[in-house]
């Protein structure tokens, strides 16, 4: 028997992760970014979507880690994978091959059309902050069936204008992807610590579709660098269940213990 009661004691990060996890189905083949996406994808696998296929860009296919990896290429990912391919093969046959249904990305900055920046803040040649760069994201963003994004809201992260477009979302709005000949859906959902946003069906501008329990529209606007819109039928995000939280916390606990051992 599993405990499906909504819980009231959870952190903002926890509801972000749980809500993101719920979006994946057992049929998905998911290209997993490190950090928040990795927790959400593995929570999905350990709860309602045991059959979900997780792929990390290090080449590990259908991996079932017992603890969360700290890097994209931890040994745990390879040891629990169906098989591990080379990185060129991963990007050629698997990502570009069109075999991934969901790409799960995070980012340093996002704009209202779900374009992402993980490259620089400030001028590219004289950056104020040099971020890590795009990694797999530019091609994940256009070659996966759809993109889920998960990142915490803040005015520095949700910005009016990106200094640099690292990965392409909906460009400048409706028709941008089509204009570039891109046939995949692009970002369809953004999971944050305060709410869930989705592109408006017509304009492709992100709008809040559910608010997490207790979060006000004003609070969301405070953490967003553009005048954020709310869907007509904006509702409340279902709270995490006790079972989801238990499995997520156990996963984090196992992860902490496992990585402590690795001096």
């Amino acid at each position: 028997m599993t405990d499906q009661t909504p819980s009231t004691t959870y952190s903002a990060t926890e509801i972000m992760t749980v809500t993101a996890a719920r979006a994946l189905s057992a049929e998905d083949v998911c290209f997993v970014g490190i950090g928040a996406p990795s927790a959400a994808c593995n929570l999905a696998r350990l709860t309602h979507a045991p059959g979900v296929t997780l792929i990390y860009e290090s080449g590990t296919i259908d991996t079932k880690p017992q603890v969360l990896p700290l890097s994209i290429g931890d040994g745990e990912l390879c040891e629990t994978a169906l098989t591990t391919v080379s990185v060129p093969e991963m990007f050629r046959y698997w990502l570009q091959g069109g075999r991934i249904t969901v790409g799960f990305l995070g980012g340093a900055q996002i704009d209202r059309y779900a374009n992402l920046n993980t490259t620089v803040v400030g001028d590219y040649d004289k950056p104020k902050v040099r971020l890590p760069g795009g990694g797999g994201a530019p091609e994940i963003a256009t070659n996966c069936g759809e993109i889920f994004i998960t990142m915490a809201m803040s005015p520095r992260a949700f910005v009016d204008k990106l200094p640099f477009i690292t990965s392409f979302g909906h460009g400048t709005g409706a028709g941008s992807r089509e204009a570039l000949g891109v046939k995949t859906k692009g970002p369809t959902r953004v999971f944050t610590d305060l709410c869930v946003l989705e592109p408006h069906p017509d304009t492709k501008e992100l709008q809040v579709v559910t608010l997490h329990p207790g979060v006000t529209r004003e609070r969301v606007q405070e953490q967003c660098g553009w005048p954020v819109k709310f869907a007509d039928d904006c509702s409340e995000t279902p709270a995490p269940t006790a079972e989801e939280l238990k499995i997520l916390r156990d996963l984090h606990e196992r992860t902490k213990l496992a990585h402590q051992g690795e001096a």
Partner: protein
Amino acid sequence: MAEFLTLSQAIETVRDGDTVAMEGFTHLIPYAAGHEVIRQGRKQLTLVRMTPDLIYDQLIGMGCAEKLVFSWGGNPGVGSLHRLREAVEKGWPNRLEVEEHSHAAMANAYEAGAANLPFAVLRGYKGVDLPKVNPTIRSVTCPYTGEVLATVPAIRPDVSIIHAQRADRAGNVLLEGIVGVQKEAVLAARRSVVTVEEVVDDLGPRSPNAIVLPSWTVTAISVVPGGAYPSYAHGYYKRANSFYQAWDPIARDRDTFLAWMREHVLERGPEDFASRLAKVA
């Protein structure tokens, strides 16, 4: 045929001004070899690597590099590379030119190098700003469909350096686990150095399709047990995650960085890696 050399001899194959790729995708990162490059004081290198991490932070901070070709530069699971950032943001210890790609583009560029093609074609770089700041990103038109696809030049390093699990006495090198772009990096390079955990009489029972670099594709092999520490070697030892965390405060400050490098790299040798490992295992 590969020559078995000491690490110091093997790294003499790297010359000032060379284009050098040290690869390893989280796994099997050639730390010991990178330290030897620093000890030998190589300068003006063009460093190529999909995921420059701590070893490249160290090389850059010690002034070995004048250019970096990369697609993701960070301390995995921890945050920024402070030496890389200071070089890019403030030009210390020297200005660092940057040629930046996506992972897909670099993986394809290594693959094209291994295949002796001058360029790689990919469905990539759509709608993004990198092509505006990287003039090596161009395009070709498909002669059948008219579709325009992105291109990048093949990567052909002067020297590629990797770490692998083991070699046999003939110098054939076995790699397994997360193998990244290491095979392509070696096959794309003019010269190559491979550090290995051990040399065995025979590579032993293995998959008929095991990933092996034949001896005649490798220039030099050095036996350096633990040579991938603090990264890991599948089947030998685990990743020292705590080192990656400890690196963050060390690298934040120029002086603590230089002091650490003096104590742990300049005044040490490759034999140290085995003992670092002993603490891990």
